[in-house]
């Protein structure tokens, strides 16, 4: 941790970067912090409890300013950064990506290619709890699944924390704010909530990097991250992707193959 603080303080002190986005101690668990000075860098921490995907801030212009920004990225954040880079949302010149390795070494990435090489060693796996819910759902009848999700969706009050916490939800005007046509009813009701989640998942198809930030952010505890997570597991073999390894060959829905499955089409 000291190494990270020292490095961040040095970067800020010598003007290499104008901002370091990292983690500090929060009320119950670590939370994001924006360090503008070397003194503030003293608050930085890094541990397995740091779960926020800080990549979410990289597309917010008013926070990033015009100078170079350093970010301490966890593995899920690195995946998001890579996906954002593929979608041309990041400026390589103005970003210094830092991570802390298992051996507590501070690692700085010179470019996005290095990130790609680094995360290739980390396989994205479903966590025990996620697998448990997916197994439970797959064991259900269709009617039971519908009931499960409708019950879950009835809790949603449309705070859009899922959207706000997702690094890849960076549209300045979201589909739910469009009203001509108004695809998704803006009020909170189970159907409108489900339609919103279906849209979110579809817009994430092949882009989601499986960080789970949406599910973590949900204040009413709906396991919405499973929608995109399950989709990833299903689509990966179908379309030849590896979950958690952003593909440079376009995302699932912007590309196609002549021999894509069509056994469900008459």
């Amino acid at each position, binding site marked *: 941790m000291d190494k990270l603080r020292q490095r961040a303080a040095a970067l800020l002190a010598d003007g290499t970067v104008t901002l370091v986005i990292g983690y500090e101690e929060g009320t119950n668990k670590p939370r994001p912090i924006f360090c503008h000075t070397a003194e503030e860098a003293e608050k930085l921490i890094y541990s397995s409890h740091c779960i926020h995907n800080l990549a979410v801030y990289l597309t917010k212009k*008013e926070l990033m300013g015009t100078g170079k920004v350093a970010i301490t990225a966890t593995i899920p954040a690195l995946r998001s950064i890579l996906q954002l880079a593929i979608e041309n949302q990041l400026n390589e010149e103005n970003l210094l990506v830092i991570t802390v390795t298992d051996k507590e070494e501070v690692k700085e990435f010179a470019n996005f290619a290095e990130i790609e090489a680094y995360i290739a060693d980390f396989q994205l796996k479903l966590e025990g709890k996620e697998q448990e819910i997916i197994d439970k759902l797959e064991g259900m009848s269709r009617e039971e699944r519908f009931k499960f999700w409708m019950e879950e969706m009835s809790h949603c009050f449309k705070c859009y924390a899922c959207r706000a916490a997702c690094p890849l939800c960076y549209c300045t005007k979201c589909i739910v704010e469009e009203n001509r046509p108004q695809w998704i009813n803006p009020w909170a009701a189970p159907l409108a909530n489900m339609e919103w989640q279906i849209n979110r998942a579809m817009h994430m198809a092949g882009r989601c990097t499986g960080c789970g930030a949406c599910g973590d952010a949900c204040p009413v505890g709906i396991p919405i991250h499973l929608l995109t997570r399950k989709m990833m597991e299903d689509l990966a073999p179908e379309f030849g992707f590896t979950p958690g390894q952003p593909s440079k060959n376009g995302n699932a829905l912007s590309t196609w193959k002549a021999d894509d499955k069509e056994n469900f089409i008459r």
Partner: protein
Amino acid sequence: METKYISKNGLNEWFSQIVKSGKRVYAPVKEREQVEFKKVQALSEVADEYIQTTQSIKSAVFPRAEVLFSYEKESGKVNVEDFNPDTVKETVLWKIHPCDAAGFKPLTAIFNWDYKDKLYNAHLEKTTLVTFSCAKADKSCFCTSVNGGPGNTAGSDVQLTMLPDGGAIVEILTPKGEALVQLAASAFENDKEEDKSKYLADVPQMFDVEAIKAKLATAFDSPVWKEQSERCLGCGACAFVCPTCACFDIQEDAHGSKGKRIRCWDSCGFSLFTKHTSGHNPRAVQSQRWRQRILHKFSYMPDRLSVLGCTGCGRCSRACPVDMNILEHLTSIAKK
């Protein structure tokens, strides 16, 4: 005001009489690792071991989505069907906290500011508030800093303070509360003159709200808003769990010739909340929106409506995905 005692069995009897009377009863229920207010039928459904429900109970008087009126178009003409207050059911809010009851005062101030809101009032009139004083609190709680307290009776119709024997001290505070007690009058016994304060949680006062108000009067251009809001993601979680946030949107649910006009929750934290048709947005960045949230609750509302827009329930701090702890932010403003 009258104080009585009710035994554990008496409590069961009273509760079943309330349900039997046909009133809807909303109470905290533990489900999916969350405690939320739900419609209940039996006392056994009511949650026990928890500090605070995730959401406030404001939805009882200000639903997430509500039909203001409905209409039908017929060859150029429109027939309108007004909201009918008779459709609103008598409701009992069981085991809400004193901070929940306190939340109704600012809501009423907003919804009845000059123009009386018929829908809100219809709900409120038919709602009876049964608060349970708080025996426990956590570090997000700060009711004592905003003129409240774990045994505060303001706003409640009846307040219960649970006793170790499973019974409770019953403070009957309003005619509505009295009427609720009358549903099972024999279940109540004479006051045992227990000292209520012995059973209340210790919630230390963290700041002087008057001092904060004074500071905020000149804080509009302060750098504090940007400093505090940098990590804010701009979601609406804080507003939607808040017992006093009342911002709403008016929307249309139209199908062919029929339709409904709907009021639904909205939040000043959303980026498009204030955006003009012209494209100009007076609150274009998150720091401005965070400022609005704090100033509205702690400066504008006291100024304009003579009521504080915060009850210290701490829900926003607990619900925030990035730990925008309001208590911490307020104490830091107080110290500046």
